[in-house]
């Protein structure tokens, strides 16, 4: 990554981090209903991958997907408005935190059933190929998803059909409250499964935005060239609990400390300074991020609630919800 690119990536990560913090606070204030699964700590995966993808590629994410939505073009305001049940939300307040989607920029959805979107990404890659494009598809998922059936079916089909799809596991060491190591037969839940599908399996530091960008770029180029899928395991850690107000007390303090020291923003900042970018410039990026998110919070708060009758639209392609004639 060139310094300018890295600075842009840094700022994007800073925006995501602040948006997640805002979402957390708004949840505790009762302004965000239901649940949230915050991605603070995971920013480098979304931003690094996004930097390596083309705008016309397809991305599929999980309920922990705010970072992917924003990395693929959703604004903090759109996201927060959705979380706060506003008519101006990304999904008109019909989706909520777990289903952020921005189809217009290729962010084809956040799915809340573990593993379900991996076959969808396979289908998008298949479609890209059938329509004669060289787009690729990427599915981001958690370590916990590697033990569910859909994972296995998706990887095998992608490999057999040699489709341009990347499977990117965000291994944050935990499912909800249980360590992935307790329930997985191999040490590297994703990478160690790649040989079962005859595809490359790699591990990358998911907190290093440069490493993520480079690795995804390489695997994406391979996929785009027709050499088939790959499985990437990006090691990372979440800064908040699993969801809502989970204090994550099941994680050893020493482990938390170690990972908080290995923060994606800190890492990127270090790289920026190292490459000669003045601290003041980085600071300005931080400031811009802070302001942007503050404005987004205010705008989302000010936005109107949805009309209840909106509940009876959008089932069918004609916009309606009639099930009888």
């Amino acid at each position, binding site marked *: 990554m060139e310094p300018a690119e890295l600075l842009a990536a840094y700022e994007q990560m800073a925006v995501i981090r602040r948006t997640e913090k805002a979402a957390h606070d708004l949840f505790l204030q009762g302004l965000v209903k239901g649940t949230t699964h915050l991605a603070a700590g995971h920013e480098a995966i979304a931003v690094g991958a996004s930097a390596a993808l083309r705008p016309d590629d397809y991305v599929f994410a999980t309920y922990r997907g705010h970072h992917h939505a924003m990395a693929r073009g959703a604004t903090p305001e759109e996201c927060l408005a959705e979380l706060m049940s506003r008519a101006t939300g990304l999904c008109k307040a019909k989706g909520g935190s777990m289903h952020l989607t921005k189809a217009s920029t290729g962010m084809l959805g956040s799915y809340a*059933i573990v593993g379900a979107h991996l076959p969808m990404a396979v289908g998008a890659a298949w479609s890209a190929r059938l329509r004669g494009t060289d787009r690729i598809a990427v599915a981001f998922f958690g370590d916990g998803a590697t033990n569910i059936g859909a994972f296995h079916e*998706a990887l095998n089909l992608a490999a057999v059909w040699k489709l341009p799809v990347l499977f990117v596991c965000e291994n944050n060491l935990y499912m909800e409250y249980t360590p992935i190591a307790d329930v997985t037969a191999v040490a590297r839940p994703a990478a160690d499964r790649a040989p079962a599908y005859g595809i490359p399996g790699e591990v990358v530091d998911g907190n290093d935005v440069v490493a993520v960008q480079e690795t995804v770029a390489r695997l994406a180029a391979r996929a785009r060239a027709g050499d088939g899928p790959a499985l990437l395991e990006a090691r990372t850690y979440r800064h908040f609990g699993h969801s809502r107000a989970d204090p994550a007390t099941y994680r050893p303090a020493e482990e938390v400390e170690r990972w908080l020291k290995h923060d994606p923003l800190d890492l990127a900042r270090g790289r920026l300074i190292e490459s000669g970018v003045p601290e003041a410039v980085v600071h300005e990026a931080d400031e811009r991020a802070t302001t942007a998110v503050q404005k987004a919070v205010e705008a989302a708060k000010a936005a109107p609630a949805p009309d209840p009758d909106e509940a009876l639209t959008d089932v069918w392609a004609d916009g309606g919800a009639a099930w009888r004639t």
Partner: protein
Amino acid sequence: MADVISYREAVAEGIAREMRRDPNVVCLGEDIGEAGGVFKTTAGLLKEFGPERVWDTPISEQAIVGAAMGAAMTGMRPVAEIMFSDFLACCWDYLANEIPKVRYMTGGQVTVPLVVRTANGGGLGFGAQHSQATENWAFTVPGLKIAAPATPADVIGMMAAAIRSDDPVVFFEHKGLLAAKGAPVPPDHVVELGRAAVVREGVDVTLVALASMVPVALKAAELLSGEGVEAEVVDLRCLVPLDVSTVLASLGRTSRLVTVEENPYQGGWGATLVSVVADEGFGLLDAPVRRVAGECVPLPFADALEERVIPTVEKVVAAVRGLAAY
């Protein structure tokens, strides 16, 4: 054009017509290519359209339907085959939680124009795991259109409508009807989804049926005619959209309703129709509403047992006779 076409041939013909019209229509499923499908309902497609349009898959129902979904969201019109409708259970998450919900939960950002076709129903001695009529499973999930044709012409016409539909459609092909024959079907025959057909007129009772139960109801109507009871028979064709108007209009003439369904009584589609009628058609009814439905047991293997479980002509006749007192 051949003199007659079978229901089985109509499936392949219906798909082929749409594949000729629209290059975005592609098929995927187990053994659908060279083998032409285990029921020969995709026979000839690989030959005519080649391996870039007709894809054999591993035994991976989730990947089949999940991939179809991803392709449908990105510009294709996939037609996915799930070999037996019982196996919909193996990819139920896609039918229940993903495909019917993604348009809604994204606030209308995406559409999922796909067809999931599947061989449905009993009566062939295939046992508990290969004989169910599962259209009622799909009926529990808002957001799926549900087609279940009873004739070769409807197979072709409804397949056209299903593939052209921008909404997801689950298309139930009844195993017991595959060998049934019908008149050849004119080009560009399209049967709009959600239009029931009055396939026999009558004034004494309305029989509402679907798929393989349509010929059962028609035979019962013939027998009843010999006893002086003229039954009107409505072929629902679709469960969603459900053509309530046609049923209520028929009840306006007959004042009596018997539904004939292969689903088990508990949770069968007839229940929903009856509940609409018990509300909106209350004033029309002269008699109790009867449902001739499957017994609430798994499907047994032996013919003698299976007949005890699935509705038969005799059971329909008996149900109608039972209303004579009213």
